[in-house]
């Protein structure tokens, strides 16, 4: 876990690190919260040509600092947008292949990058009925994914209780074989590290550690046997510029607290 004296919160870390994964010119399907912050941060810092899509039906909005939307389905999401579409049509952009990256969170993730946002416990007798997939299943079925999630053992599990949003299913070619011939997990970003997936087995693998974090720490906070790449790099700490842009976007610290 982050030590107390770091000059940024875990959420700020997630936003900065995942924002850096986006490339200029990409079209990014983002949920509200950290994904939206990360994509907007990327726009301001290095990717002015990044286009954000919201599942409520918004294409290419300018998010107004301090007026972050509470859902993807309200008018705040549409401010200075290039276009509004129906929900079904904006999601169909994924199926047509117009989206480069999907960007979301999740309650649980497993070794193969499957996400659960439906049930904690068995679906028949859950201990918690979660809110459900929303567009998550569609996004992860149809495009390359970045997941931003806090690194905790209860979240990083051997097998998710329920596959809401498919990652690589049970690894190897199982995702492709089930009919999901495009997309797949690209990166998982946490407050400890950045993970990718083994090219063959599709098992989760640490690609980079955040400054001051050890591989041991990552293992301790992961509920399955996570691969550690041989050439694990170390990320650069969030810069002052990044943090100040983030804090300008979310002055009330609704999402970055």
């Amino acid at each position, binding site marked *: 876990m982050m030590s107390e004296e770091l000059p940024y919160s875990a959420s700020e870390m997630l936003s900065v690190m995942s924002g850096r994964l986006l490339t200029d010119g990409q079209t990014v399907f983002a949920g509200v919260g950290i994904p939206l912050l990360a994509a907007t941060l990327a726009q301001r810092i290095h990717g002015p040509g990044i286009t954000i899509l919201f599942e409520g039906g918004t294409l290419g909005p300018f998010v107004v600092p301090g007026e972050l939307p509470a*859902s993807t389905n*309200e*008018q705040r999401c549409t401010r200075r947008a290039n276009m509004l579409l*129906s929900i*079904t049509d904006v999601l169909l952009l994924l199926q047509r292949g117009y989206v480069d990256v999907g960007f979301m969170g999740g309650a649980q993730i497993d070794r193969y990058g499957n996400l659960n946002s439906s049930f904690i416990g068995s679906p028949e007798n859950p201990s918690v009925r979660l809110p*459900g997939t*929303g567009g998550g299943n569609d996004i992860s079925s149809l495009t390359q994914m970045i997941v931003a999630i806090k690194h905790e053992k209860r979240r990083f599990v051997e097998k998710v209780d329920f596959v809401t949003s498919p990652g690589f299913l049970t690894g190897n070619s199982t995702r492709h074989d*089930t*009919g999901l011939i495009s997309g797949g997990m690209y990166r998982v970003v946490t407050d400890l590290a950045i993970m990718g997936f083994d090219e063959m087995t599709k098992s989760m693998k640490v690609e980079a550690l955040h400054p001051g974090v050890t591989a041991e720490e990552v293992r301790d906070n992961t509920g399955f046997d996570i691969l550690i790449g041989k050439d694990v790099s170390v990320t650069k700490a969030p810069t002052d510029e990044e943090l100040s842009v983030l804090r300008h976007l979310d002055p009330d610290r609704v999402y970055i607290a």
Partner: protein
Amino acid sequence: MTQNYLDLRAATEARDRSLRSKVMTLEKATEIVQDGDHIAIGGCTASRTPLAMIWALIRAKKNDLSISRSIVSTEGDLLFGSGICDHIITSWFSQGIVWGISKVMRSYTETKRAKFEEWSHMSLGLRYRAGAMGIPFMPTRAMMGSDVANQLENLREIECPFTGDKLLLVPALNPDVALIHVQRCDEYGNAQIDGLQFMDLDLAMAANKVILTTENIVSNDQIRRRPDQTKIPFLTVDAVVEVPYGAAPHECYGMYEPFFKHMDDYADLTKDDPDNGVAKYLDRYYYEPSNWPEYLSLLGVEQMLDATRRGRSIYDV
């Protein structure tokens, strides 16, 4: 739920689809909904929710409704809590991300008093679209391999006869009644919708009957001046009810944003004892007021003005 095509056509043919006034009260419009019906709700999450119509249906003590909606917010709690519905089909069900998981949804589903049938967002949209197009299914490349699909019975997989690709077929959904709230429409039901459209156009075309609530009834002349702005044609509409602030405390694009304070209060009320919380809320806001303006008075003029100021600001660009 996959309706026989000839039955669907016969139901449509039996409706009076002529250019005639359909203006009526909320109370009268509730008679269009039959016990046991499947009702589709327009808007999404806390936006353009036809809350006035839902309010009237709850007061009319309907029974055994099933409901579908793109994303379900507080209206889902109230539908469960009032007992008029015990089956909701949607992709996401909670008040909204900032308020956390709905305790009422949890309470009702975890005790199995009600069912939350989960579909992916797009697949539900495609079900309405297939219904709107008069075809029995729509093919899609999503949802395969997931437990979301595994839990659903009414799906088929095929190998594409053109390409060999594996495809999932989702069945058409033709709701018995669709409830849609719009900024304006004429007395015949020609509706304009500003801003986000959500799934409402497909809903109107798919449904067997449509009840429109509207902030404002305008003249047919105004509609005919810009026919390319009409989003729902009168043909599909069976009732038009003028209800200002008909989505309050949710948002209506360009007119008012959510009544945030009221939404916070609701979340607080249902946090610790969701069953009693929702019951209290229903008593106070749904059963006790004698009409819609009284309901709005309880929300309070101050919140109305605040929500309206924020709502109008979207055009100040």
